[in-house]
């Protein structure tokens, strides 16, 4: 087997339950090196759970997760810490550390995770902040002093600071105005295209999905119900996908609502 055919991420038969609720029920999905894949699906369908399982933040009951062909389910702590150096993650709520200044947030993985000198890490942090359109005047502020859009950009700078091989984006444009959402989308595309990073994103935002994805997969009922190229999604022939991308209340996906 050569590197060319080994997917960067390969998930097979992944199952994860919370109590009696089986959220993921035999997920199979691959992501090639340098590819940007977007996972879409309704709220509560397990998109974040899938990403957290790949990251090792949640432990699946069954299935296999391979990164560069190496099994990662059940890795011991030290091996997991080494594996984490391949990953970057942009959290939905940014998850910036309140007690640290902006540049310290961006440099955190370099200083604490990789033992880089603080001054060297600060230079990298300032460069990454510049790459997401934030000047050095922002670097000394605390996260609470920034707007939501700026926090998202700082979180993006933190995710790319160590130049990881794989970046996960959890709802990167949720809660942002359309212009700021497009700025974030552009930054994600830039990361993936220019640096060659493999990207796995979760979103409800179809504008964002169309812009950042090479391939789209739809998660529903614990399964991947459809996956294909972004250009094919409008002609998928899948009723779930059609209902979701057109935002229709009528269709096979039924929301649990009670009459008032």
């Amino acid at each position, binding site marked *: 087997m050569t590197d060319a055919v080994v997917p960067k991420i390969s998930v097979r038969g992944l199952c994860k339950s919370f109590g009696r609720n089986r959220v993921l029920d035999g997920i199979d999905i691959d992501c090639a090196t340098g590819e940007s894949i977007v996972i879409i699906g309704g709220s509560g369908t397990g998109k974040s759970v899938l990403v957290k399982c790949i990251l*090792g933040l949640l432990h699946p009951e069954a299935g296999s997760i391979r990164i560069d062909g190496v099994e990662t389910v059940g890795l011991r702590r030290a091996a997991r*810490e080494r594996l984490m150096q391949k990953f970057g993650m942009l*959290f939905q709520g940014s998850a910036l550390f309140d007690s640290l200044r902006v540049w310290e947030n961006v440099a955190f993985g370099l200083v604490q995770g990789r*033992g880089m000198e603080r001054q060297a890490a600060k230079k990298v942090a300032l460069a990454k902040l510049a790459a997401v359109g934030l000047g050095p005047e922002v670097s000394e502020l605390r996260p609470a002093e920034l707007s939501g859009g700026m926090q998202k950009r700082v979180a993006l700078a933190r995710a790319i600071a160590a130049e990881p091989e794989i970046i996960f984006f959890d709802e990167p444009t949720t809660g942002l105005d359309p212009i700021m959402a497009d700025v974030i989308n552009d930054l994600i595309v830039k990361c993936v295209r220019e640096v060659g990073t493999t990207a796995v994103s979760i979103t409800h935002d179809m504008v964002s999905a169309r812009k950042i994805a090479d391939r789209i997969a739809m998660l529903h009922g614990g399964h991947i119900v459809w996956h294909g190229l972004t250009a094919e999604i409008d002609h998928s022939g899948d009723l779930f996908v059609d209902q979701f991308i057109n935002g229709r209340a009528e269709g096979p996906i039924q929301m649990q609502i009670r009459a008032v």
Partner: protein
Amino acid sequence: MLRFLAAIGAVFLGFLAATGRLVTFAGLALATVLTPPYYFRALLRETINIGYFSLPVVGLTALFTGMVLALQSYTGFSRFSAEGAVATVVVLSMTRELGPVISALMVAGRVGAAIAAEIGTMRVTDQIDALTTLSTDPLRYLVLPRLIAGFLSLPILVLVADIIGVFGGYFVAIYRFGFNPEAYLNRTQQYLEMSDVVSGLVKAAVFGFIVALMGCYHGYYSRGGAQGVGHATTHAVVSASVMILVFDYVITAAFFGR
């Protein structure tokens, strides 16, 4: 009847499971001390937070505890013409018992709650997951420095509390009841043994560890947003306070139970 027994059994099993989780959590956190990296900056910050910033509240509490102790023991002992024992009662009570226990309870309220709230907020806002994705073990970075800082800071705080408490008693005895200062200090020294102070400091180290552990544990496993953080904070303070009193008995029995 069976249902009643089952309920008792469920509570007992729940207690054992919770104890197991707590011991496992502490063990995993302490095991990180065996390998680098070490976060000395975090340790210094937590030592200042737990130790230095607790000095005013602990000092004030110790002062009034010593004063009340002198007041109470004088009014009690004067009935038997045993006022001379006031100095001994104050110094032994402070060093063996009240210094460590009162200081630890104060620190549990001030620091245990703050630790649980801070780590709990980090948990519900994904900051702990973010640490993991940044190749940083949360137990090593968040928990271990607090456990060590609690363990090291409390004995120093208690030593200060003991001194302030004894002088609180001294002031009441001298200025309110007209004791001879030299005689009072002589009496204080005469019956104080090293084991009295050491037992208090051992208690303090254990209590400091307990306060930090309960704050970290409840914060680390908090769930459900602001309400979950609130529960974590309450549980951290209540469980630390109860464990302080339980371990106070255990350590006292170990030192003086012969």
